[in-house]
């Protein structure tokens, strides 16, 4: 009892190790005093001798130590390759590779980022990862969970209960959903129900970002990700208890960029693939004294909308052509409410696009595939039963409550509008916009100008800043219109005054000069394409290509 009390103090009361050790030592003194009053037996003396005085001993007695593997992760967010350690028998320590050897393309540049740094452990100099990724072992955790009394019985009784309940025709839980009947095993048969002699489990994964500093520390915020699994075969009363949820690992800062998240998802996918194809034979479990083979599969991934884009490695929600991972509506088409006319995406298309993206030989080929499909390769595509479109859900909590209801209250009803209402821009701010435009700005420079001043300036020179329905035009659209307008208004003397290199092109037409100017100011493809559409000179296009 006092030992459990110390554990609770340590993990739930956030007490430091010294405090916990103090409590243990005081408890031991109290027990000694108690035994001095009454004559202790030999077993009492043995208990006193073995009574722990360090909380680390208590940890090992209760066997709460998880089985973990510490991977070394590349520091570059766009690489984030992970490396498992190997055991050096001579030095009796775990060792990791010194440098990252990952290549984005076959035969391409090798990363070569340093992975480890020096540290001291038990008086010995060791090399430890600079950016470690500590992952819990899935098989060990699954075995520990199934060994706990009542878990396997709860799984079996709940499955029987759901089978009876299915006759009503209504769905009361995820176990009643069609996904439990859809997933196939490696031989093409239904994954559930499990055949005799096997136990088959379905899991749901969640990948979510959080700030471990709780936004309290001054300075830049840090974002780390967590990967958590729940066992869907348990009844809901047990499923979401903290002790039944599997924390695979915490993705270390900095957040992996784009497809680099696959390095961390690969750890999960490797465990699930092994469990799906081969299963894990546990030699003894409650209700299975002679052992049983356990197979697992992933039924769904539950994240918010930006998280689902990251996990799938799809285009962002603001992408012009592929904002939605479920249908092919472009961004401008999201206002269309006739959902019967939407063209759905299929898992075969997504997988094929991911495969082509993975096999592309350079960044340009990958960009072309991504722009046309909105898909990069995801680690989840390696699961043979995985439906790349339908198995990642739209989280109702974020979508309905934090999205629609919040928008309805704040924007439509205007509650709390007082804190978001802005003052109209001053004359000085609007004139500043004119100064910025006269300096031949790039798109990035214009994006930094406050939106209200931009709107007023646009209205002044005749660019529409609101649609026919009265909604505001976005900042990106406004900046684009402004850049295209200044290209037309520039005259040759004004340009040559600033760019002496253009004097060598004295025979070029005014628009050809403007084309050079646009290339120099690094305007986006979008602006240049629009300008070229309006201008009819073939020379412009030749120079642009």
């Amino acid at each position, binding site marked *: 009892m006092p030992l459990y009390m110390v554990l609770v103090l340590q993990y739930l009361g956030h007490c430091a190790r010294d405090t916990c050790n103090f409590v243990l030592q005081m408890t031991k003194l109290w027990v000694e005093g108690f035994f001095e009053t009454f004559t202790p037996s030999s077993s009492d003396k043995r208990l006193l001798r073995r009574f722990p005085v360090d909380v680390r001993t208590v940890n090992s007695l209760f066997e709460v130590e998880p089985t973990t593997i510490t991977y070394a992760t590349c520091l570059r967010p766009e690489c984030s390759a992970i490396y498992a350690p190997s055991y050096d028998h001579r030095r009796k320590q775990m060792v990791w590779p010194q440098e990252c050897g990952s290549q984005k393309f076959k035969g391409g540049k090798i990363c070569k980022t340093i992975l480890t740094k020096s540290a001291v452990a038990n008086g010995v100099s060791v090399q430890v990862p600079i950016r470690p990724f500590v992952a819990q072992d899935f098989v060990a955790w699954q075995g520990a969970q199934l060994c706990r009394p009542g878990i396997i019985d709860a799984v079996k009784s709940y499955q029987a209960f759901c089978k009876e309940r299915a006759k009503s025709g209504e769905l009361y*839980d995820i176990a009643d959903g069609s996904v439990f009947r859809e997933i196939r095993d490696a031989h093409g048969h239904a994954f559930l129900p499990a055949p005799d002699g096997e136990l088959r489990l379905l899991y749901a994964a969640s990948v979510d970002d959080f*700030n471990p*500093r709780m936004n309290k520390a001054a300075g830049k915020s840090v974002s780390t990700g*967590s990967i958590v699994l729940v066992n869907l075969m348990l009844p809901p009363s047990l499923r979401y208890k*903290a002790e039944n949820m599997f924390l695979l690992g915490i993705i270390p800062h900095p957040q992996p960029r784009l497809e680099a998240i696959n390095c961390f998802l690969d750890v999960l996918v490797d465990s699930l693939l092994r469990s799906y194809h081969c299963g894990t034979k546990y030699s003894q479990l409650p209700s299975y004294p002679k052992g049983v083979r356990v197979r697992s599969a992933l039924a769904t991934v539950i994240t918010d909308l930006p998280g689902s884009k990251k996990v799938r490695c799809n285009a962002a929600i603001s992408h012009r052509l592929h904002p939605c991972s*479920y249908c092919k509506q472009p961004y401008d088409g999201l206002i269309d409410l006739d959902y019967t006319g939407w063209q759905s995406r299929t898992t075969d298309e997504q997988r094929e696009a991911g495969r082509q993206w993975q096999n592309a030989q350079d960044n340009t080929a990958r960009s072309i595939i991504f722009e046309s499909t909105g898909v990069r390769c995801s680690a989840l595509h390696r699961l043979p039963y995985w439906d790349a479109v339908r198995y990642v*859900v739209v989280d*109702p909590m974020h*979508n309905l409550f934090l999205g*629609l209801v919040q928008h309805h209250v704040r924007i439509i009803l205007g509650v709390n509008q007082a804190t978001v209402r802005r003052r109209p821009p001053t004359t000085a701010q609007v004139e500043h916009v004119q100064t910025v435009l006269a300096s031949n700005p790039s798109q990035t420079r214009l994006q930094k100008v406050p939106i209200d001043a931009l709107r007023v300036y646009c209205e002044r020179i005749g660019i529409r800043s609101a649609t026919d329905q009265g909604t505001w035009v976005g900042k990106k659209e406004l900046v684009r219109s402004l850049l295209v307008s200044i290209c037309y208004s520039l005259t040759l003397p004004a340009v040559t005054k600033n760019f002496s290199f253009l004097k060598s092109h004295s025979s070029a037409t005014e628009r050809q000069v403007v084309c050079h100017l646009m290339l120099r100011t690094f305007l986006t493809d979008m602006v240049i394409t629009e300008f070229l559409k309006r201008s009819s000179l073939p020379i412009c296009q030749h120079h642009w290509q």
Partner: protein
Amino acid sequence: MPPAQLGEKGAGKLKADQWRSLIEFDLPISMLRLYFFDAQSGDEAHNRRRKTMLQSTFNLAMAVRWGTSHRTSDGHVSKYMHYMKLYLTSVKDMGFELKPNHHHALHLPDFLPRYGPVHGWWMYPFERVIGILQKMNTNNRLGMHVAFIRQATYVLIVQ
């Protein structure tokens, strides 16, 4: 329960559960009282707009009710779509810009027959785990990931 000073600076940021309680009870009842039972102003356009807002709020409340019910069926899906489509059409007609969340709200019912009622697959339990992880003491040293993951697992087990 949503904060009493909703709308004022002191109310702060609302949690998802507070928004849920708002749309399930507080907002429809309060708006009904303010816009319908209380004396109406003489301005016709003002009254019409209030009525549209009230209808819109009720459409959203009904859609959320059908979508987040504890049991679901094909009937629930069609009711949800009916009310959500009414709500989104009214938002568009009132001249407000539709966001990506509005579009994805129409994809949401695809998951109801596949995964059952939303209580089995929404993020509330996972956000609770995130809450536990955020409260853990890192001593502002994020390199201590080994200690962090072990402590996180211990906390989940001991809890």
